[in-house]
């Protein structure tokens, strides 16, 4: 391998610090022509700072030093502002995660792309227009002429990302840096963007891909560098690093990926719970339900049953769109039903209908065989303790004025008291149940990390001793290892407490790992429903097949 001559980017011993805080420590990288190096790590691992340092955008407060930092043979150390500007765009292209904020909403996509051509080339106006159109065609835009005249707000997420990539490669840079380029996208769109990146690489562009998603990395990159706490702990060819990881951290990351791990297998590598039954044994849960006059489900009666649900929403321009269309499903006792679908497929609307927050236009939800969605809120209230929910973003669902202890005391006592002292035992037990120390009761929700907040949210949902939890993307906003812990926790709680879950996610791997049965949603309709293993191994509906094919998966190890 003639790496010495071919290396587009060479970095040796890069250090970046913010004041006294080191963000990147001794990172060395090298990327050859047409090669893709993936930088993998969780949030705060220093991967984005590394990438930004390579284009001089680490920020004014950053302290960047490197023994060697070369791009195409030219040294990058000691470049001034002007030097960096010359470099960006022409030699390095940069694609950010959120294309919506990276494109100027007031300018057309064509002008955005044309900018760098006007600044850095001697092309005439007509030549530039032609080049813009050919770039848009290159990145797979269906109608370049039309798209060039549109603004970022008029484009879908996938098209925006394409436009951004087109502007990044307008000057044919030797190196393309893509920072989480597909994180905000649906699986099928993600697959298209990954194909596009792969085709760019075949044309000889070197690529630095930054991602937290090991499956994405596995499908695109040649080389992987695993970062944690500012250091690269393992680096090598993709097959080797993902196939037979050497470092403990890499192993932990791989184990945390839910796809390919059978239902019930632990993801986090942490031991299971010891004494859940302290406060919430399945038997202990009964009195509450019996108090409110709720019949216990006999064998065969689904705890939650939806029949022919439909919901239409009016849009601002007087038309209406169908969010949920003829959806029926049943959730059995102690079972998990996974609802999977892309954004806009009606997942959240179904969750809201199941929770009695949105009234369906047609159809009915029954709870333990009794009316639920047809009740008035007043009648529903006494049965609300039976069904709880866990949100994707728990922070906004906490009252910021209350401490964790007060929030849990409120939930555990049916709103009778906020005083965590009066219900200290309950609060402590709830915190223990979700694996948090008792002194968290005194903290405010904002001082918790994402994973801790989600644990508190689960504790609150469990406080009224529900039989059903509706989990709407409960781990989607979390890093993969934290996601693994939350999924494990939900699994443990289900086993201990006999809970039923309606588990909603866009992530096929997560749904497959968590669910007994799965329903696939597309544009408000359930296109396929069945036992998880069967549905994933032999999908019947073409849409399910497409969805499965487009989601990059790590081979089961």
């Amino acid at each position: 391998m003639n790496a010495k001559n071919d290396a587009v980017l060479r970095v040796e011993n890069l250090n970046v610090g913010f004041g006294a805080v080191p963000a990147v420590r001794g990172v060395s990288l090298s990327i050859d022509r047409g090669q893709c190096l993936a930088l993998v790590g969780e949030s705060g691992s220093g991967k984005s700072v590394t990438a930004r340092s390579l284009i001089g955008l680490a920020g004014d407060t950053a302290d960047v030093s490197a023994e060697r930092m070369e791009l195409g043979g030219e040294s990058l150390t000691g470049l001034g502002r002007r030097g960096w500007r010359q470099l960006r765009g022409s030699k390095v292209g940069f694609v950010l995660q959120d294309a919506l904020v990276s494109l100027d909403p007031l300018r057309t996509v064509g002008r955005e792309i044309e900018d760098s051509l006007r600044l850095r080339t001697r092309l005439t106006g007509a030549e530039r227009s032609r080049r813009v159109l050919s770039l848009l065609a290159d990145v797979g835009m269906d109608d370049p002429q039309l798209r060039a005249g549109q603004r970022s707000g008029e484009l879908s997420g996938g098209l925006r990302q394409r436009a951004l990539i087109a502007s990044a490669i307008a000057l044919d840079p030797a190196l393309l840096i893509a920072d989480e380029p597909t994180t905000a996208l649906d699986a099928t769109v993600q697959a298209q963007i990954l194909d596009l990146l792969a085709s760019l690489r075949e044309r000889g562009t070197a690529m630095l891909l930054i991602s937290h998603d090991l499956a994405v990395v596995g499908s695109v990159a040649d080389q992987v560098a695993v970062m944690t706490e500012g250091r690269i702990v393992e680096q090598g060819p993709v097959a080797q690093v993902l196939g037979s990881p050497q470092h403990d951290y890499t192993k932990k990351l791989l184990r945390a990926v839910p796809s390919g791990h059978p239902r019930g297998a632990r993801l986090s590598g942490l031991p299971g719970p010891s004494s859940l039954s302290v406060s919430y044994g399945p038997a202990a849960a009964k009195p509450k339900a019996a108090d409110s006059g709720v019949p216990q489900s006999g064998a065969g009666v689904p705890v939650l049953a939806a029949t022919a649900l439909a919901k239409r929403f009016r849009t601002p321009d007087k038309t209406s769109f169908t969010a949920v269309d003829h959806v029926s499903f049943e959730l059995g006792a102690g079972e998990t039903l996974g609802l999977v679908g892309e954004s806009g497929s009606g997942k959240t609307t179904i969750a809201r209908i199941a929770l009695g927050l949105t009234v369906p236009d047609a159809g009915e939800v029954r709870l333990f065989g009794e009316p639920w969605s047809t009740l008035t809120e007043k009648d529903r209230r006494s049965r609300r303790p039976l069904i709880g929910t866990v949100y994707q973003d728990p922070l906004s669902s906490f009252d910021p004025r209350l401490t964790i202890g007060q929030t849990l005391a409120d939930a555990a006592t049916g709103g009778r008291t906020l005083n965590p002292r009066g219900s200290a035992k309950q609060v402590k037990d709830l915190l223990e149940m979700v694996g948090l120390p008792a002194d968290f009761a005194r903290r405010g929700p904002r001082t918790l990390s994402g994973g801790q907040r989600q644990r508190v949210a689960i504790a609150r949902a469990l406080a009224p001793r529900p039989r059903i939890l509706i989990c709407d993307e409960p781990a989607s906003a979390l890093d993969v290892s934290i996601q693994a812990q939350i999924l494990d926790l939900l699994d443990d709680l289900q086993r201990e407490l006999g809970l039923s879950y309606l588990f909603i996610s866009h992530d096929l791997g997560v749904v497959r790992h968590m669910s007994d049965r799965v329903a696939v949603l597309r544009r408000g309709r359930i296109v396929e429903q069945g036992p998880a293993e069967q549905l994933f191994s032999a999908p019947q509906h073409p849409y399910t097949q497409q969805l499965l094919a487009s989601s990059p998966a790590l081979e089961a190890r």
Partner: protein
Amino acid sequence: MSIFSNKRNHQDPVLAGTSGAAGTPDVAATPGTPGAPGTMGTLGPTRSLRRVSGLRAVELGAAAVALFLVLAACFPTLLAPFDPLAINPADSFQGPSSKHWFGTDESGRDIYSRVIHGARPSLLIGAAATAIGVGLALVLGTLAGLGGRWLDFGVGRILEVLFALPGLLLALVFIALAGPGITTSVVAVGLSTAPGYARIIRGQISQVRSSAMVEAAVVLGRRPAQVLFRHILPNALSPVFVLGTLGLGQAVVWASSLSFLGLGAPPPAAEWGAMLAAGRTYLGTAWWMTFFPGVAIVLTAASSTVLGRALQRRVAGR
């Protein structure tokens, strides 16, 4: 109830926006340790501590001024060496001296004593007017925020009409109808500040009402009244108390303006606006007659603004 004494997080976009400009870091934005149960990290010392301590000198000064003003309003005789109304023609138009710190007016009254005694009516007018404004706004804003679409529409239109008129003009109209005097000027200033507060309260309430936090309470089976008093009102109204503190200074200025125009406290009374009006005639020869009451007004307004901002940062930045 003590909204500000409980040391809890508060999230408020309206205030967070303004205080963000003042450089208040968001606690949530400081990197905490990711949520591994084994590594429950504590937050390190954040920048907010340093920022706040950097501003503390100004805040302390404002607090000292406010304390002095309150003391003067409560116990004027402790601080003032002379009777504010005692006429002594022999001493008229004296400049500041060791005997008369702020000089004397056309009737030989001690300006310093009058400024001290003026604190009570000025602060009372300011506080009462703000209380009336906020109280009225609470009613209007809560009605609009909670009362459903038609009530919201109705209140919204009324507020818009009131907004179309400048506040001071509104106050003048009211005084023209009700006749001059301290009571009417208090009510007038209160009335004219109410629309601003009402609109903020309405926005706050409708925002909190549609938040995930309220939805979570509904899912837990809480009754509407419980949700209202436990979650919606406390979260929606705490910023209003901050705004009230900020508005106090403005109300003092407005009340003084009305007195200056002869529509508030009648002339012999020691009131800052009235003193300004009396001194205006002698501005060329006896500057101290207008200068010191003016300084008192400025200090009152400034200290209430600084304290209001500090309060706002505490509430929003937590």
